[in-house]
């Protein structure tokens, strides 16, 4: 016979494992409800960050990723949650000038940082050159990966300019070149389920060419 304590433990395990499933499928609010009882003030932190040039002061559960802070707290839903595990690039944003996966970093780790999301790159009527090129070249189908692709490609062109090497860079002691092969390799952290890759590369190559 199971004692009440054992029952309590298995109920708790059930809650924990269902919370984990919810987290994987991406409903952050469900997770917060399931675990709310276990959080306290010590599990919250204050964080100030600048997003697209505006300052925000947030009180967040320490577990809040930068991605969830942007989407759930600031309602900047341009940044997407694909895998929530660093595997797809849909959540790519630019923090202090560098692209990162916002799903694998905590909001509390970014106090004082400057974040740029797809909304900050350009808006309808005043598109960033890469946003315009993605439209022109049909660099998407469903569009879910697109904000991540565009944030990533903006940073990729900067990384090449800053002479950061990649896996396909030939001579490590010379300036990295803006070639389709370089762009393709550097964009490999952004997966497109619709397979719009060739048009994405065309869009980036065009902007790289006109800039260079």
């Amino acid at each position, binding site marked *: 016979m199971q004692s009440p304590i054992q029952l309590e433990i298995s109920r708790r395990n059930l809650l924990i494992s269902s919370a*984990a499933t919810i*987290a*994987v499928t991406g409903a952050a609010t469900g997770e917060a409800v399931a675990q709310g009882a276990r959080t306290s003030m010590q599990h919250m932190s204050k964080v100030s960050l600048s997003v697209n040039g505006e300052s925000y002061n947030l009180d967040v559960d320490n577990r809040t990723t930068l991605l969830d802070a942007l989407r759930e707290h600031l309602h900047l839903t341009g940044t997407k949650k694909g895998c929530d595990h*660093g595997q797809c690039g849909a959540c790519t944003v630019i923090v202090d000038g560098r692209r*990162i996966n916002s799903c*694998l970093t905590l909001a509390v780790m970014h106090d004082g940082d400057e974040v740029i999301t797809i909304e900050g790159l350009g808006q309808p009527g005043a598109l960033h050159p890469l946003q315009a090129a993605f439209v022109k070249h049909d660099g998407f189908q469903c569009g879910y990966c697109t904000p991540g692709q565009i944030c990533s490609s903006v940073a990729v062109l900067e990384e090449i300019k800053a002479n*950061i090497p*990649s*896996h396909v860079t030939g001579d490590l002691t010379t300036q990295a070149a803006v070639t389709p092969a370089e762009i393709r390799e550097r964009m490999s*952290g952004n997966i497109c389920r619709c397979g719009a890759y060739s048009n994405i590369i065309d869009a980036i190559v065009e902007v790289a060419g006109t800039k260079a």
Partner: protein
Amino acid sequence: MRAFTYERASSVEAAAKAAASNPEAKFIAGGTNLLDLMKLEIETPTHLIDINGLGLDKIETTADGGLRIGALVRNTDLAAHETVRRDYGLLSRALVAGASGQLRNRATTAGNLLQRTRCPYFYDTNQPCNKRQPGSGCSAIGGFSRQHAVVGTSDACIATHPSDMAIAMSALDAVVETAKSDGSRRSIPIADFHRLPGDTPHIETILESGEFITAVVLPPPFGGKHIYRKVRDRASYAFAIVSIGAVIQQDGTGRVAVGGVAHKPWRIEAADTELPKGARVTASALLADARPTEQNRFKIDLVERALGAVIAEARD
């Protein structure tokens, strides 16, 4: 993810003390491995110590002409550093062969060394795994083991260490510098840093509780050709099936480490001396004690062939 408290460390000493006094605390650097595992509740720290603000992000020349790499130097910055590209090209190459541009912008030197295995059963919390839950069994032995280790394995675990960077560090004879909670410091040769699984696969390094990695130090440059060759299931953004990190001199002598085959970067100094004799002899010396599974036996041939390609490239 389980709830946790959070602090920003004020110094290395304070961070080491805080970690040693609370067995459920963990340091967080880039967070790209720890948070991944926390979301799955494979890691369940109740306290996180953020070590990003401690100024450990510098790369400096040492007195003997080597290089001291701060623990918090990002993988991107290490790969792009002028001296690393010129004198330790193997390290740059290994770094840019790993993960993605976004991940490398966050991932740190220490975090990369301490990243945990990608064994799918370690990640699947519904399956037995001695590394995740000591004593529960190993699902990979007798399960899908194509990606797993072929050498240095045990009956408890056949997982591999997934780091590309660590293969370069191993071939380059890096030394890991640490600070302990009692204020003492130590220098650990990379060969002694990671452990084989034995019957405690959950203990992966010789670090003590609270021990803080402050830097990784490279000896003065070795010259020679620096080559990192990674064989994987797709051309980019995938972990190694097998990888070779080598420095090869004009006379054919050199140093070599192998990735994707063991629980730690695989380096046998006796195998280095065989390099001038070619890939077959060197690979046999490296994998003399291999115990592959039916599914990963192919790695034995793959190591030899990848090494053959590296030796040929060095001659070019």
